């Protein structure tokens, strides 16, 4: 899957190279851009990043695999991040997660075309627990019986992460 950055990404990367003190420091923004453009960080995507920033592929791969949001496999259109950390757990997050699993027929970490289900660590929405995040949308105080309507809503109005941010 040979990968080359689009003109607009190249412009953005060059702009960042001007602002950051080193080229290597542009790596995290570049990996975000690569994921946005190529869907996930396959080997050719990593090679494109390494070539652009004059870094070794090993360094780029080492960084890309360190961070949980950087993906080595394709995701669904919506990445559903269900928090199960303590504040959410105390208010029923595991029941919410089970509902998403049965509604989507996915286990945490699995994807289909439309959804990736992530059992997420604390998303800093503790006083609105249980909380679920998808792109720029938060769902607060979620109950298991709301899961069907959340899923339907996201099917009709998808929230791809990078599009939602721009």
């Amino acid at each position, binding site marked *: 899957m040979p990968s080359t950055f689009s003109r607009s990404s190249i412009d953005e990367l060059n702009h960042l190279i001007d602002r950051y003190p080193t080229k290597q420091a542009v790596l995290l923004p570049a990996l975000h851009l690569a994921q946005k453009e190529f869907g996930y960080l396959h080997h050719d995507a990593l090679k494109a990043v390494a070539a652009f920033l004059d*870094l070794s592929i090993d360094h780029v791969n080492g960084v890309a695999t360190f961070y949980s949001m950087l993906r080595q496999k394709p995701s669904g259109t919506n990445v559903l991040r269900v928090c199960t950390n303590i504040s959410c757990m105390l208010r029923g997050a595991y029941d919410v997660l089970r509902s998403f699993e049965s509604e989507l027929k996915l286990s945490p970490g699995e994807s289909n075309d439309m959804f990736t289900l992530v059992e997420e660590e604390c998303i800093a929405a503790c006083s609105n627990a249980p909380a679920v995040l998808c792109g720029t949308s938060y769902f607060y105080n979620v109950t298991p019986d709301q899961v069907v309507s959340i899923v339907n809503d996201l099917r009709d109005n998808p929230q791809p992460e990078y599009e939602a941010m721009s």
Partner: protein
Amino acid sequence: MTTPIITAHLGNPDARTMTGYQALGGYQSLRKALKMQRKDIVAEVKTSNLRGRGGAGFPTGIKWGFISPDATDVVLVCNADESEPGTCKDRELIYWMPHQLIEGCLITAYALKAEKVFIYIRGEMMREYKVLMQAVQEATQAGFIGDNVLGSDTKIDLIVHRGAGAYICGEETALLNSIEGRRGEPRIKPPFPAVVGVFQKPTVVNNTETLSNIPHIIEHGGQWFADLGTERSGGLRIVCVSGHVNKPGIYEIPMTMTFRELIEDTCDGVWKNNQIKAVIPGGSSMPPLDVSELDVPIEFDALMSDERIKPVEVKPGVPFDLGGGRKLRTMAGSGGIVVMDHTTDVVSVCSRIIDFYHHESCGQCTPCREGTGWLSKVGKRLARGEGKPGDVDLLSTIAQGIAGNTICALGDAAAWPVLGFITKFREDFENKINNQPKRVS
């Protein structure tokens, strides 16, 4: 009810815009600061007794004082990588009051002669990133950010740097490595960031809530801020209350308030009229309090030293040694207060906390990488009711092997709550082992 300082306009969408923020008096403190001597700004912040709100509670003015006045290439980094379980204040501050944070960053950058500012925002905060980028664009257009801030010869460039999912990047040296395009692995200290920080330059790392307070300190003076606080800790502070209370939320409170007052009055009590079992006082890495320990004020020094809080033990009657014979009670940490009612299975909560730190260990230090895995394995079987005799002491032994033996505090963050939960709730752990069904034939 105390008048809030930095949360006064949370919930008001107008305050998010440049026009709305300026209508509330926004950026007047930056104008005032630019007319002040840099050393006078640092002095005001020292007078204010502002202490870092990220967790450690280190005095902000003293941290700034570590930067040499002759340094020319200082970098300011705002830590907006909020991810300590139970903590949900910085995200709200960015979402509702992005300009308050930017103004705090710009005043601080001016005071430290920093021409580069990085705001390291957590990757998952996509909504907040969008809001912050919009605000940075507005501030740049208004001439607050750029080569000539408000027409002066002060130059400040502000870069919003997105993380990509790693709790450890909230640790300041891991954060600096992450900005440099490396794996987020903490560095050995010393050298401290003030001497050798990001890109080898002198660097100050401050938390989002800490920096959001700066415009108000400049507006009203350091003494005003100090007077709002306790003897050694100025201002109000935000606590994030979650768990089994009727009114969870983020509240900006005086640090004389006790946990009991916060829970019963501010948060309208425990849900379902239940009793309290345990309270985590400052994010999941802090040892919990039991119901008898809630009359202590929510203040940095009190939580470390108040004798009403039982010291954490390694076994019954033997206190854990923090070094030099110092006892560990607990800490105010990040302000994440998690309330658990009497129906809570604290063993399962402890196990979930362990799993978090196991997941987030960067893998650099063996005691943390391996130890959190062992804790997780034993914690899980205890939580499932399949623990073996001796497992409670085993947990304690593993935790002691991690604490104090790692480059950064993540090892302590994993070990302390384990020791704390066992100290306060040993019976719950033992019952989980003793009440298992026994096959009799």
